[in-house]
């Protein structure tokens, strides 16, 4: 069954068409890679799904329910969460408090609700930063800040997680470790869409790849099929050429 359906999504900024009639379906339990050269519209698709941008045309459904015009917090409450490309922890709060913020109920009456210390530790442990809970985000190395972003996302108890360039700025060892952790999420039953402009990091992780180019659907298939696809290679070469 499809968890996420993006139907004929179009997003324009003034005269610029950033995403053009793009469709995507994600089934329960799979990891889909959404790739494309820089500026191909991948992050715009994520921003539309998460309600950060008003959609120009098209429809987005989550578990069959139309979420096209929902605001971000409603979408998150329904079980969709996004790990954004930029790390934006709150520097005044410790790692543990940053995670706790993401567990607080959306209610002005709930003055002392939210996750217990034990639950926060569990979220952190799923991405291996449970020994950093009392540190401040500014003290963490880059890879741990990225992990904190994932822990925050996990703390909203998502069914589907959108990961935007999760490997950016990481070295080979860190990429390997993170890929293994993402693999573990899948074993726990999480559905994921991973955006990357780089095909390499994703190929062993994902079940299926969708390629965007200039806001348009270009190709879809297994990682092996995509790697051999001439149109994809040409798009990447053209992108590199720019």
């Amino acid at each position, binding site marked *: 069954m499809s968890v996420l359906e993006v139907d004929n999504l179009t997003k324009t900024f003034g005269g610029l068409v950033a995403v053009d009639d793009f469709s995507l379906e994600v089934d329960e339990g799979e990891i889909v890679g959404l790739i494309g050269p820089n500026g191909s519209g991948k992050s715009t698709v994520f921003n539309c799904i998460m309600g950060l941008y008003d959609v120009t045309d098209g429809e987005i459904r989550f578990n069959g329910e139309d979420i096209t015009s929902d605001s*971000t*917090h409603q979408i998150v409450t329904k079980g969709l969460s996004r790990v954004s490309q930029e790390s*934006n922890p*709150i520097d*005044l709060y410790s790692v543990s408090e940053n995670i706790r*913020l*993401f567990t*607080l109920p959306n209610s002005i009456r709930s003055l*002392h609700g939210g996750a217990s210390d034990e639950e926060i530790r569990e979220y952190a442990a799923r991405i291996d930063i449970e020994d950093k809970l009392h540190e401040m985000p500014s003290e963490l190395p880059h890879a741990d800040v990225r992990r904190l972003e994932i822990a925050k996302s996990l703390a*909203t108890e998502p069914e589907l997680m959108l990961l935007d360039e999760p490997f950016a700025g990481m070295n080979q060892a860190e990429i390997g470790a993170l890929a293994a952790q993402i693999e573990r999420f899948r074993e726990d039953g999480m559905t994921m869409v991973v955006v990357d402009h780089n095909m390499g990091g994703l190929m062993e992780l994902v079940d299926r790849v969708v390629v965007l180019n200039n806001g348009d659907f270009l190709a879809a298939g297994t990682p092996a099929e995509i790697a051999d696809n001439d149109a994809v290679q040409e798009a990447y070469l053209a992108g590199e050429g720019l």
Partner: protein
Amino acid sequence: MISTILLLGTVCSTVTGRIGRVAGTLRRQVLWPIGRTLERLLAPIDRVLDPVADGYNRSLGPYFGEMSGLQFGVIAVSVAGLLTAGTWAPMVGPLLGGGLLRTLALASIWAIFAMSWDIQSGYTGYISFGHSALSGAAGYTTALLIVHVDPTLSIWVTGSVSVLAALVVGLLIALPTLRLEGPYFSLITFVAVLLFYRLTTAFSLLGGIPGFGQPDVFTWDPMVRYYYMAIPMLLIALALTFMARSNLGMILIAIRENEPAVSAAGLNPTKFKLWSFVLSSVPMGIGGVLLVGFTGNVDPSTFVVVDNSIEMIAIAVIGGMSSILGPLGGAFLFEVLNHQVLHGYSTPVRYLFLWLIVLFVLVFARDGLFRAIWHRLGAVRGESE
């Protein structure tokens, strides 16, 4: 022309460089040794008070914030001092120019205003330049009820309706503006207070410049009057501290630091900002009602002028924004300086001096004096042992 600019630039950079060096020397050779000596003296007190503070931390700490022994001692002494001011202020007052109970009563009202401003603007970062419109709404409602409806109405009736009026004005400002980002929110609150000011002077129905003299003061007894102002102030401080140390305070600060992250956490920022405005408007209304009972006159310059809004911000800045208790301390510092320490000078000179202090705090102690003191108190043993 260009050479003049270059010359000015060189002079400015030399002067600021020198000020920076002087400040550095001052800090190293004067402030640090004083701080270390104080720490050595205070550490034993901190240790003695620790068991009491621990008891508090276990029972009430989760609701009002945890404290070290010394912090607990300072709060206890301050609260005791405020509660017993009726007995000691008349004795100490003459040393400071007299009228100390009056100043403390006024400081209590301004503490309410500054704390109310803080829970909304200090916490969310949506800076309001128009909070005097809220206390003004309450003050004018009381006056209009007494003048136009029934002069014998009880304070409970006029007070409740006035607080409600402050809430309504607060929501009228907040509802259309809280979705706006950047300077627009601040500008609209600023325009709101300018509008209100012109409204009060443009129509005789609203009393014009002289305002309304009909409302009665609560009492002429300075001691009773002080307690009429101080007790509500302490209760509001307690309530706002409780709110600020809860999830709500955490979310409001997160809105200030990174609003998109709050949405990403599944929390509706607009709802929480609106609630912060409610939490701010209600005590602003109470403060407005108390100010009527203090002055017995409702007029634009006591209640509405934009200077009042700016003064609330100044007090919060001096004390330390987003801490509730910082603005409380700031109010007492500001008013005692204004009406006691500087009482020999004319109003313009006093305000010149007060605004210079605000500038000084903004440049050298941006987090506020009382927050800085609070953190030092919390760390006396951490650094001396």
